């Protein structure tokens, strides 16, 4: 990834000639709409590669459905393994988006404007990916709909005491709200697209714009609605991942049964979410040449957030160790010790390095704007966070209460294929999106642009 470092300016002047001038309204329109130009062969090359991986993943799933869960590496005692790991991982990714768009909006953090659209899209696609896994994971996934409460002919309801049923509610709610919030945010921009296009495109955008005229009255309603949704979405950021964490906290398994989990998971989620935002925005900025909008300041802020959440996470790791020691429960201790020295120890230490050590470079200011460093650290963080979930689930189950059934889980091609496929699925959605919708909010960016006559330094 040889992106030009954030400090330098794009080769081509954005507007009116002067390199380094901040963009004008015209620039914004041009630059954003340009992202929707018909893509080149590189784009299609990547897309077809991703599609191939996705197809493989689907193939694996078909095998698993036909022959049974045995095709995946699961066993007794690891009844859960990579699927739930990846599920939790994606749910986590799905957090930064809402955080940026809603919470930062409420705090009126202006710098969010140029990145929130992308991260919101990321959120929705991440949740859509995560949502697949409980289904993939179920032994008889064709009956997964039994988890949904509906008045059935059998007079049977789901068990509302089961955290899995809570998941159903938490995730569906989260998906719905963030979806609506996302669409509302899009409306004015789509209207802009409608006006910018002709023919069938204009027609489609016209439908999606839902008759947006930009009239004063509409704007008033729009603002109110937008604020309302932001307020609605904010608590969800916290609730969703807390509920997901209860899948574990509510269980009896040593190392899972802990009140720590909710904040622990939420923080981890934000941590990984920002990492993913960086992983997506940095190439996007390069590809679409959006240096003027996604500036060092954005990178710097997000790096700071990663640093903070990373430190908090490290604190939680410490707590995890402390509680298992302080519990005085030999079984708790044995299970924790197993993470350190047991069959999965390498992954445990890898996780610690990625999540607790790597982000520390951001204490050093230049690193926060140095794109290669940012990129590498973000990737490390993502790896680390995936393994954090893995290390909670797999070693936790491997060394529970009953020594006679201790055993090591070995992944197979099938479950690996499905997990990798999920990344392809996510990317295909995201890359599709950036070509049909403005990946940067025209309206809000414009709002943050200073009046030409005034001094360039707006904030």
């Amino acid at each position, binding site marked *: 990834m040889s992106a030009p470092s954030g400090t330098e300016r794009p080769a081509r002047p954005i507007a009116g000639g002067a390199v380094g001038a901040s963009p004008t309204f015209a620039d914004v329109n041009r630059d954003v709409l340009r992202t929707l130009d018909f893509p080149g062969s590189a784009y299609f090359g990547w897309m077809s590669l991703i599609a191939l991986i996705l197809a493989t993943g689907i193939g694996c799933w078909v095998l698993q459905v036909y022959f049974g869960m045995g095709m995946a590496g699961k066993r007794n005692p690891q009844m859960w393994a990579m699927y739930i790991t990846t599920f939790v991982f994606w749910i986590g990714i799905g957090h930064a988006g809402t955080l940026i768009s809603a919470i930062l909006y409420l705090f009126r953090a202006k710098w969010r404007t140029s990145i929130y659209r992308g991260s919101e899209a990321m959120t929705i696609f991440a949740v859509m990916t995560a949502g697949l896994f409980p289904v993939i994971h179920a032994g008889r996934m064709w009956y997964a709909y039994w988890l949904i409460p*509906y*008045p*059935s*002919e*059998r*007079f049977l309801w789901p068990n509302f005491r089961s955290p899995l049923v809570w998941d159903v509610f938490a995730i569906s709610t989260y998906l719905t709200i963030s979806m609506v919030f996302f669409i509302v945010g899009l409306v004015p921009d789509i209207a802009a697209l409608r006006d910018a296009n002709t023919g069938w495109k204009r027609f489609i955008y016209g439908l999606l714009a*839902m*008759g947006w005229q930009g009239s004063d009255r509409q704007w008033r309603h729009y603002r109110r609605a937008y604020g309302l949704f932001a307020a609605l979405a904010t608590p969800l950021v916290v609730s969703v991942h807390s509920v997901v964490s209860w899948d574990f906290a509510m269980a009896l398994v040593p190392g899972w049964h802990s009140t720590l989990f909710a904040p622990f998971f939420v923080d981890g989620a934000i941590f990984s979410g920002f990492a993913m935002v960086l992983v997506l925005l940095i190439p996007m900025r390069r590809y679409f040449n959006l240096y003027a909008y996604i500036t060092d300041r954005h990178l710097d802020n997000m790096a700071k957030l990663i640093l903070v959440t990373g430190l908090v996470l490290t604190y939680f790791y410490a707590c995890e160790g402390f509680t298992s020691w302080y519990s005085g429960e030999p079984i708790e201790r044995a299970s924790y010790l197993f993470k350190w020295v047991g069959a999965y120890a390498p992954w445990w230490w890898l996780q610690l390095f990625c999540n607790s050590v790597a982000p520390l470079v951001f204490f050093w200011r230049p690193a926060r704007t140095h794109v290669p460093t940012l990129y590498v650290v973000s990737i490390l963080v993502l790896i680390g966070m995936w393994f954090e979930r893995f290390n909670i689930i797999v070693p936790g189950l491997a060394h529970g209460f009953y020594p006679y059934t201790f055993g090591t889980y070995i992944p197979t091609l099938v479950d690996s294929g499905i997990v990798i496929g999920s990344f392809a699925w996510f990317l295909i959605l995201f890359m599709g999106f950036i070509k049909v919708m403005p990946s940067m909010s025209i309206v809000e960016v414009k709002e943050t642009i200073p009046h030409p006559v005034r001094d360039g330094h707006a904030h």
Partner: protein
Amino acid sequence: MQVRVRELLVGLILSIAAMLLPGTDVTPASAQTPIAPAPKQPILFSHKIHAGDFKIDCQYCHADARRSSYAGLPSVKRCMGCHQIVASKDAELQKEVEKLRALWKEARPVEWVRIHKLAGFVYFPHKRHVQKGLACQQCHGEVQTMTEVAQVAPLTMGWCVSCHAERQGPLDCVVCHH
């Protein structure tokens, strides 16, 4: 514009609700409307004649109903018990009797087509229900009026459960699923 949007949304919500609403069909058992057409049996055996006109007790032929989970089918021998001598006045029906006698000569069973079938994971003891004094018609409909028997009860879980709830039958899942 706004109007259209609202209509759109309302329509959407309604259709989702429609999808969720189940076909909760808990018809009273003794309903007469067949829920499936009567299959073609190898021998046109008329329950109407036997159980209706001649008032032969159900358990004379389905003798295991009171002592086993299966109601049981009459052996060819039992059919012949009467049909050695008994013939039908109706020439058409007599043909059917002849079929039976032919099978008896070749010592071959009648390959009846199953009408009432529960899923394999459901254990339904006829015995308990018969001993409790339930009429066969409760689940099988007014068989004595049917020339060709068809299934009238849905035999779905909801249908079983509602009856059990009514009559304080056991509602423990394992009673039927084990």
